[in-house]
């Protein structure tokens, strides 16, 4: 059974999606989608356990051997990302019912759940596959379904945000397609392992250089690396709250995964870092992004938008770690990829709960919630402390490795700016805290109750995870380090 797990991982949500449409009813579709998400989480857990115990898994789709058929290749890195996507998918789905009922019209709910499952399929597929063209296909599945999901937001600006994202996203993935085409032209293969083996021989050709350039721009668009992040704040602000929670914690992370995978196990560190010197440009963009986007987050008056800007900044942290191309840097980047997914998922779920109760994610809507929704806001504070990087939260672990890597490689400016941006994080998190705890609610506004249990529990699980993995790092850091060693040593 375990041998078939890689394909089951993809099939569950892929088959679940049309079934959701067939149910034709929101409630049925919800339970189906929830069952699929939980099953998918179960499979992802088993996969990670197997990979950590017995090494990488190779699965040939349809029984076709590698250069001809599509190969799923699961190592420590992608099983880690798989788990993140499946975990967030399940937690967000757990919380979805009430929020979706209040934000999505009844006749569209089953489509909504179908799109959620398709989006999961896409993200899981990108992560699991070992075939470059397959990456593009899954990238588009994820992207198309997320355009649909964002357009379902109840404000009319959601439509325009979705349109913008569609244009930017399509340009990004087409760039990636061009890059894959050029790689195929030079090597005659689409299998990632084969690509890695054949590229060094043709590494000096202009075609490979051009493909690299197209890839970097395309993937930067996809992961919203500053300054190609323009689509993200609007998309996350106007999307239905549940969608924001899911996309913010997984979509950009998976794009970062694609970058790591291409940089290290296709182009190879020798080409990307030593010959092209991608470190400098990635590192500088990341640093500028971290500071400017953290600063921008401070000035937002909508908590969703605030968190969106913070997401762009946090992508900067991950990219910064990668740009060091050292063991500690890569460990920090990968572990932050996971950790930030947990934190942002939790924070966006808190906002979803507030939107459910108060009807708005505006900063003013948070007035007095410290009293009205004590548990929810306490979870927000804990999640926010993680963003700041207070010890015993996951944020601290990531920061520790990033700073250590920066000191190791002598990037003192990076050290200073990462620390500075932690302070900016204090400010933007505390703005929300002050509104929730120090400002009274308007007298004439309706009384607000605690968030429903169905939303509190998944949020609490994620917040708890940010603390547990902040204390017990053996597992997260262990996997990230294994992945880093594998990436650096595998094809150096």
């Amino acid at each position, binding site marked *: 059974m375990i041998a078939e797990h890689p394909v089951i991982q993809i099939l569950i949500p892929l088959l679940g999606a049309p079934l959701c449409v067939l149910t034709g009813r929101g409630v049925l579709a919800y339970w189906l989608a929830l069952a699929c998400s939980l099953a998918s989480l179960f499979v992802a857990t088993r996969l990670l356990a197997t990979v950590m115990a017995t090494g990488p898994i190779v699965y040939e789709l349809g029984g076709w051997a590698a250069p001809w058929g599509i190969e799923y290749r699961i190592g420590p890195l992608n099983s880690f990302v798989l788990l993140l996507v499946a975990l967030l998918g399940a937690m967000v789905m757990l919380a979805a019912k009430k929020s979706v009922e209040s934000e999505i019209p009844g006749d569209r709910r089953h489509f909504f759940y179908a799109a959620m499952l398709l989006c999961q399929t896409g993200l899981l597929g990108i992560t699991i596959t070992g075939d470059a*063209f397959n990456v*593009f*296909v899954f990238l*588009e599945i994820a992207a*198309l379904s997320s*355009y*649909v999901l964002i*357009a379902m937001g109840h404000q*009319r*600006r959601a*439509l*325009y945000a*979705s*349109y913008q994202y*569609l*244009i930017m996203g*399509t*340009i990004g993935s*087409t760039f990636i*397609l*061009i890059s894959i*085409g050029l790689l*195929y*032209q030079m090597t005659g293969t*689409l299998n990632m392992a084969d690509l890695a083996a054949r590229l060094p021989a043709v590494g000096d050709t202009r075609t490979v250089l051009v493909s690299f350039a197209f890839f970097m721009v395309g993937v930067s668009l996809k992961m919203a690396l500053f300054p190609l992040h323009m689509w993200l704040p609007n998309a996350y602000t106007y999307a239905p709250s549940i969608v924001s929670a899911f996309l913010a914690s997984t979509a950009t992370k998976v794009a970062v995964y694609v970058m790591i995978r291409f940089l290290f196990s296709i182009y190879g560190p020798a080409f990307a870092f030593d010959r092209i010197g991608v470190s400098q440009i990635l590192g500088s963009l990341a640093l500028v992004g971290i500071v400017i986007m953290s600063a921008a987050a401070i000035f937002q008056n909508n908590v969703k938008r605030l968190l969106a800007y913070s997401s762009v900044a946090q992508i900067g942290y991950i990219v910064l770690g990668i740009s060091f191309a050292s063991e500690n840097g890569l460990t920090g980047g990968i572990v932050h990829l996971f950790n930030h997914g947990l934190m942002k998922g939790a924070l966006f779920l808190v906002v979803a709960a507030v939107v459910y109760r108060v009807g708005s994610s505006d900063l003013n809507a948070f007035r007095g919630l410290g009293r009205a929704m004590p548990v929810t806001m306490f979870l927000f504070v804990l999640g926010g402390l993680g963003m700041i990087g207070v010890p015993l939260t996951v944020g601290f672990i990531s920061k520790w490795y990033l700073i250590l890597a920066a000191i190791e490689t002598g990037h003192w400016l990076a050290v200073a700016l990462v620390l500075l941006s932690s302070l900016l994080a204090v400010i933007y998190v505390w703005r929300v805290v002050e509104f929730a705890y120090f400002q009274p609610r308007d007298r004439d506004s309706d009384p607000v109750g605690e968030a429903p249990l169905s939303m509190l529990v998944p949020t609490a699980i994620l917040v708890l995870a940010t603390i547990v993995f902040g204390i017990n790092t053996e597992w997260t850091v262990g996997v990230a380090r294994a992945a880093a060693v594998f990436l650096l040593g595998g094809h150096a």
Partner: protein
Amino acid sequence: MSEQFGLFNYWVVITLMMTGFYIVIARQNLVKKLIGLNIFQTSVFLLFITMGKVRGGTAPILDKTIEIYSNPLPHVLILTAIVVGLATTALGLAIVVRIDHVYETIEEEEIHDIERGIKR
């Protein structure tokens, strides 16, 4: 010169690509932007198909008389990409229809003005 001519398809690819890209960036009309996006994507299809062409080759049919044939794989890939492009265009147009419905315009500037509260 013959070498330049041999790269004719690639020149077309670049021209189409830049044209499409320019339209996406420069046009204000949401439908025109989508048209640009389509031209842009089409150029990539052409790129793939061109690289699959082998000089003097025919269609890849399993037959003893055929020795040189074009690489079929890019064609297959591009079939997938065309489907993806179709889906994107369809979705994009659907969104534009809804935008037209709620904003009663499909001009980018006007949407911005409406959101900023400026009446025309």
